């Protein structure tokens, strides 16, 4: 699913609420039927800024979540011997074979973002929370990342929650799109996207996609009732 809306409408806050990094002042958040009380442990997160650790190689960056889980005695951390294999396989699916031992500063923005995605997925979380993950990339790289994300979705079991201000991105990647309006933050519309997968750019720009984007744009535009 995807949440779209203007800057400042609370998209990122919503993600942090879902992850349990913030506490709701009113109402309740439930994930998988359980109310969220503190930071959830079965989520992976990736942001616009890939925030890799510059003193670690690509491989060690991807392995960071496993180190933490292991130290905390989490059952989901595989045996040490399997770590490397798992990370190498995951890096291969995003096309980073051969880059395992490189340093983050040597990589392009798109490559860094792929490493960041791998770090978010290495512990096989049930929820993948993405906060405008491709917003800082150039248009071509971003479209490649859409394909990549769809491949990952097809291969792995996780629920993706995407926050974006790019309507095309939402149409390309999400099954359900929630349109958020600001002042006060609320859901202005819910749209199912029925396009078959994997989606291509021509589908996104096709009649159905274009019509959907048009409707969402109307809902995002500050209406007269909010201007009052």
């Amino acid at each position, binding site marked *: 699913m995807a949440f779209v809306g203007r800057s400042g409408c609370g998209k990122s806050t919503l993600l*942090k609420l879902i*992850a*349990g*990094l913030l506490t709701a002042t009113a109402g309740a958040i439930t994930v998988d039927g359980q109310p969220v009380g503190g*930071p*959830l*442990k079965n*989520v*992976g*997160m*990736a*942001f616009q*800024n890939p*925030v890799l*650790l*510059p*003193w670690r190689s690509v491989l060690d960056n991807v392995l*960071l*979540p496993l*180190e*933490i*889980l292991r*130290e*905390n005695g*989490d059952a989901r951390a595989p045996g040490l011997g399997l770590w490397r294999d798992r990370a190498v396989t995951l890096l291969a699916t995003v096309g980073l074979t051969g880059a395992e031992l490189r*340093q983050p*500063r040597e990589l392009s923005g798109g490559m860094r973002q792929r490493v960041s995605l791998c*770090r*978010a997925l290495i*512990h096989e979380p049930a929820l993948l*929370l993405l*906060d405008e993950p491709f917003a800082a990339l150039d248009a071509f790289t971003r479209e490649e990342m859409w394909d990549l994300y769809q491949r990952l979705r097809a291969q792995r079991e996780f629920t993706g929650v995407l926050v974006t201000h790019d309507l095309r991105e939402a149409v390309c990647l999400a099954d359900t799109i929630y349109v958020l309006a600001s002042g006060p933050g609320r859901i202005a519309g819910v749209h199912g996207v029925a396009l078959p997968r994997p989606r291509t750019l021509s589908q996104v720009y096709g009649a159905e996609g274009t019509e959907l984007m048009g409707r969402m744009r109307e809902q995002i535009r500050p209406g007269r009732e909010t201007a009052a």
Partner: protein
Amino acid sequence: MGSRSRRVVLPLAVFVALVLGWEALVALLRVHPVLLPPPSGVALTMARTAGPIAFHAWHTLVTTLIGFGAAVGLGLLLGFAIGGSATVNDALYPLLVGFNSIPKAAVVPLLVMWFGIGMVPAVLTAFLLAFFPVAVNVAVGLATIETELRDVLRSLGASRWQIFRKVGVPRTMPLFFASLKVAISSAFVGSVISETVASNAGIGYLMAVAASDFNTRLAFGGLAVLAAMGVLLYGIFAVIERRMTAWAYAE
């Protein structure tokens, strides 16, 4: 000439030219040697008093290093506390800045009153001058961890202690090692100031005695030793910095 050798040869050439120019000017203008001795005379005095100079230099070095060591230890602790906790930061940082703006030379008489003439006030002055840069740099390194990174780790169930160890400490290291260069120079300044005012040993003491005897040659000799020691200490810590945190520089 390669850019590397350029960076070594060029400043050396300027230095040699300056010394030669000094020598020539003193001879040409017949400056009285008590006012300004020629470099050759300074070198001669240094060679003749090599033994005592070495003794005093060693004393200054030990004093500086003890003060520096204490400053690094306390600076690290204080930096971690300030960078790790907003409460500690709000409570201590303004005081720290206020304290640091006191000229430390003004504290030396008090230290002498409490601890007498000798090594202790010199060590303390070195310490007082050196701990501030360490504490501030470490605190900045910790306090500027990206929110996103914190979120990534917290969503894995990482504790504050784990975030501190896995991210805080390594990302602070370049700033910490950079601060050591500043701290060692400051410690050196501190110990020499204190030695000049109240000590029975050390280069600062040697220079104070030389000046009161109008022994300008020896005073310049002391100055040359101080300069050499300062450059050497700074250089050592600059090399350590590059070695320890290559990831922050390599491009």
